[in-house]
């Protein structure tokens, strides 16, 4: 079965090889490659030795604690946005980075807007799955406008003083 995978961009807004297939609960596992499983299915399969690379899809109501013990085996954690107004994924991403020290790929999937790109990155998201028809160029331009590609030292960036002063200690 040939399926077209959604387009994915990295933290600079450039399109990258997707590399992962999202599987629904009942869909058969492919023979190889990477699959993103819903949380319940991941928990049910986690013990098995599989020929595929594993990722997980967190629904907005899923607590990141549920995958804490499995994070070392996961190539990607996808946080999902059923509507762009539902901001739970931001907290999930930050919890994964800050509470559990997860260093792998965090991917935003679902309904997200280019205008949210910088916030997603600041919360620890590293890739974004674009909806059909979305243009990576728009994401790059929004990022540029909001200083996302600013490579100056934090103290010289257009940020509130608190963030300039407190960046080394990590206050957002």
């Amino acid at each position, binding site marked *: 079965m040939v399926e077209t995978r959604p387009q994915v961009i990295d933290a600079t807004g450039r399109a990258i090889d997707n590399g992962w297939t999202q599987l629904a609960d009942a869909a058969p596992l492919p023979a190889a490659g990477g699959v993103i499983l819903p949380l319940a299915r991941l928990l049910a399969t986690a013990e098995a030795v599989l020929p595929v690379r594993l990722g997980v899809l967190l629904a907005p109501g899923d607590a990141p604690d549920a995958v804490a013990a499995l994070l070392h085996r996961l190539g990607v954690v996808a946080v999902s946005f059923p509507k762009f107004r*539902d901001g*739970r994924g*931001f*907290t999930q991403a930050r919890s994964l980075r800050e509470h559990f020290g997860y260093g792998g790929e965090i991917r935003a999937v679902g309904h997200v807007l280019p205008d949210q790109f910088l916030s997603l990155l600041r919360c620890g998201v590293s890739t974004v799955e674009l909806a059909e028809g979305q243009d990576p160029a728009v994401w790059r331009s929004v990022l540029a406008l909001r200083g996302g590609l600013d490579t100056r030292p934090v103290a010289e960036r*257009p940020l509130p003083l*608190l963030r300039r*002063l407190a960046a080394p200690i990590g206050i957002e």
Partner: protein
Amino acid sequence: MDILEQIRPAEGFPSGGAQTGIYHYDRLDREFLAARIATFREQVERRLSGALTEQEFKPLRLMNGLYLQLHAYMLRVAIPYGILSSTQLRKLAHVGRTYDRGYGHFTTRQNIQFNWIALEQTPDILAELAEVDIHAIQTSGNCIRNVTTDQFAGAAADELIDPRVYAEILRQWSTDHPEFAFLPRKFKIALTGSPQDRAAIKLHDIGVLTTRNAEGIPGFTIYVGGGLGRTPVIGVKIRDWLPAQDLLRYMEAILRVYNASGRRDNLYKARIKILVRETGAAKFAELVEREFASLSGERFALPQAVVDTIHARFGAPQFETLPAQSGAFDAAVAADADFARWTRTNLHPHRVPGYASATISLKPIGGIPGDATADQMDLVADLADRFSFGEIRVAHEQNLVLAHVRRDDLYELWQKLRQPGIETPNIGLVTDIIACPGLDYCDLANARSIPIAQAISARFADLARQHEIGELHLNISGCINACAHHHVGHIGILGVDKHGSEAYQITLGGAANEQAALGQLLGAAVPAEAVPDLIERVVALYLDRRMPGERFIDCFRRLGMAVFKEAARG
């Protein structure tokens, strides 16, 4: 074009120590604002071209304070913790004159609203405001809103810390916070620097009260889950005392719990008060403490050096060394009964000898509470320059304050204030009414508020009688969204729709201070024309039964509702 070119610094601003009270921006703060405006300009263009749907544009414009009302856009401009320089107030007057219909409306959250705004002009308005370091960021939307504090911050005699410094820290922390821009619902934080609550902190999503611990160190007592609207709730205490350096760490913890667990299935159950109620206050506090403990104390602690640096960005008034008593003031009080009356209601004690804070009432008899014309704003700006280090405060009661006036100058100030609209000596009295725009302007309202406020104001117009009645807070909301906080008025009036006609429910016994309470219902709703008589009977009973020096609210608490119900029946 360089985005910075859109923001030219206004002449003479900021002019070193000349502008005090406000937090001073630097070049990078202005770059930040410029980038925000450029982003918004581009979003407006995408909206005008149809690239953004209204549904997609809505949260973006709300992040910039732009509401779509029945007839036009409304722009709500942030006045961080209610403090303005005279330069900033003149700019607000200019915006009112140029882009609106010559006035602005000061709100119960210390902001200002302009009601007749054109979408395509908003980027230009924001660029004009940015010239004087004002913005409209996060004055609406489901994010952390303007942090409010009391209007006497930095001046009040009873202050333990200067709340502006921590309010500014909260403003910077919450501005463009990456995690908390899409909360279940809007989020309001109020902070007061004294154990006396003048910022209605128990009616906010988070209320921060400054208190001393057993060792006498000032820190914060934290309340959560307060709010009015259709489910009025007094906030509950979840932390007795928090070291000041842990303020942001604790805020992060509360917001995280709320963002992850607050309800998103029902607009009316999405505020944190519902989460606190459904979780249980003790359990909620436990969740917050757990999150708090998991956030690195070292990483999230506010270093004293950072607090000091931010503190230093506020211009400090150069107070003179003056005797506590002013001969000129005492003589004027003795000689001029009208002035003496104004001093009894419109002054507040200052921490520096020889100074006082003066409140300018925006509640003229028969007027619209909180409205100020562009000309009035210009005049107040001039008076601030002349008498109060160029500094103006907006009180959550919708009045303006000159915080640092020499007692020697008060008589001259008062004489300059003797103009229609700003002269009324009624602060804290029955005609210092807090009212929402009501059905005259607002499409959410069930009933009109302004004509009721005007009728009550006219009924109690006699100043001698108002002063005889004493402290009495009266709040009028045109619907259950409670924009005028009617639940916490000593007398609260709520407009309702009764079989297709406007009617009004009266509550008694509400309070918004540290003894916050929700009012109790006096009886069935009555038609508009019956309201002044009903208020009259309630006040008459109070005057008849009060003990010497007893305020209305204390008398109500002593006598109880039944006595007032009896009197209300007439």
